[in-house]
């Protein structure tokens, strides 16, 4: 519940959220704030759902029963997150059906990392470990989101994502300590994913210029998130004997990571629907939405 009575004045609302205040569904929300929330949260829901597809085909290829169970459970979690997140969007006035329609028509977006192919079991490990690690950094920052219903579900989501990271690290660990060919699968996957991982948190615009930060939907800037990712995971990657495919990567004496400028043109192109797997994955999802429309109709008619 909101701690203070929020005036219908946008400036007062802004000051309230910038001071760390949180609001509920039933509170008055400025139109711009509501629109930004829907856009941000819907993209998160889309990403959880589209994030299933890169891993989905590997559920069938998991090499042991334990891995099969763990991967199935992980991907199940992601769908569960999409379900929770779309509910928050529904409370803000946009139906799940509309979210899915806008997703498959390309009107709304999803995270860059889910537009790329999953080539080997090495990619499965890198996705579960490092993509989920990058995602959890963003998601932890959402625990302080000014929109309280979203912040609350993030607790469950972060808790589950931290399990995925453990699963991913375990998959990677088994392979880097396995045969040379297995090690190579991991290194090749890391080489493929490094670029998209460095782009994941977005270009380094100052937090103050980011409308999502202005409304305190996000509580940290893009570069801050990326630095946190590098700080947390580069040492772990190196510890496993892997090479980070960026010769310019180094930690300065003041603790700041330097790296080759990520390819921002690629990021823009990918998230606007021109990634290597965008069209194929959206078509795949759309195919099943169409094919199973009769099921939803039958359920609604019952």
């Amino acid at each position, binding site marked *: 519940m909101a701690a203070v009575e929020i005036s219908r004045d946008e400036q007062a609302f802004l000051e309230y959220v910038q001071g760390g205040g949180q609001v509920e569904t039933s509170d008055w929300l400025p139109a711009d704030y509501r629109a930004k929330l829907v856009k941000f949260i819907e993209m998160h829901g889309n990403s959880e759902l589209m994030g299933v597809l890169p891993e989905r085909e590997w559920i069938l290829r998991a090499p042991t*029963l334990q891995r099969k169970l763990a991967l199935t459970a992980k991907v*199940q979690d992601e769908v569960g997150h999409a*379900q929770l997140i779309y509910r928050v969007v529904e409370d803000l006035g946009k139906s799940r059906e509309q979210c899915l329609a806008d997703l498959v028509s390309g009107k709304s977006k999803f995270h860059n990392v889910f537009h790329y192919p999953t080539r080997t079991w090495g990619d499965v490990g890198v996705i579960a470990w490092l993509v989920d690690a990058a995602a959890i950094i963003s998601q932890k920052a959402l625990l302080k989101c000014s929109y309280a219903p979203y912040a609350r579900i993030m607790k469950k989501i972060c808790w589950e994502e931290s399990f995925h990271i453990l699963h991913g690290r375990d998959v990677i660990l088994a392979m880097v300590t396995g045969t040379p060919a297995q090690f190579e699968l991991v290194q090749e996957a890391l080489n493929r994913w490094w670029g998209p991982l460095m782009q994941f948190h977005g270009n380094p615009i100052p937090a103050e210029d980011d409308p999502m930060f202005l409304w305190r939907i996000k509580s940290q800037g893009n570069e801050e998130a990326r630095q946190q990712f590098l700080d947390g995971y580069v040492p772990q990657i190196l510890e496993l004997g892997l090479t980070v495919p960026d010769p310019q990567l180094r930690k300065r004496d003041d603790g700041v990571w330097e790296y080759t400028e990520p390819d921002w043109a690629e990021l823009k192109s990918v998230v606007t629907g021109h990634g290597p797997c965008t069209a194929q994955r959206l078509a795949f999802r759309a195919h099943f939405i169409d094919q199973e429309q009769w099921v939803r109709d039958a359920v609604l008619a019952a």
Partner: protein
Amino acid sequence: MNELLLLGLADDELILGWRDSEWTGIAPMLEEDVAFSSIAQNEIGHARAVYELLADDADVLAFDRKPEEYRCAPLVELHLLDWGRTIARRCLYEVADEIRITALMEDDDARVAGLAAKINREEAYHRMHAEMWRERLADTPQFRSAVDELWRYALGVLPPKQREALAARLGREQVDAVERGTHDDAFAALHDEMTMVRRSAPAGAQW
């Protein structure tokens, strides 16, 4: 312990778990993505528990046999990425499986009877799920034709002496069953896919 019967049961659960897990990400509603994923995990967990009664290493039984050595019923192998047939299979399979599992709960071997009882407790939720969907889709042509189509496959899940019970439960006449022991091309493709990562490293490699 009837090892051949148990191997058939475990292979049924394994392959059906594999088939059901294919719905992850593409089911008609998100709730069903989650439900099918849970069911698939249970089925594979059951397969693993039964394999462990039969061998030291469940993974070796699950992955390292030749396709023709699997004892699963043709019902579970069918590649059915449409909801009417998928639900028809679930409904038919759950009834057949209940007859089989209930019988095994009376098995002379305490390990078999105990495991059957444990599996039965989880299957109770799968039956509720199947029953809910049967009620919802009962009047749709997609579901009705799928049940007709799959009925002879469902009979093949059970040994002949248990088939009358299945026919009685479902109010259908017995027909020639599609028996265990043969596999279609879709199974060869599934086997190839489910073992491809594992086969890519020498036997004994850790994954």
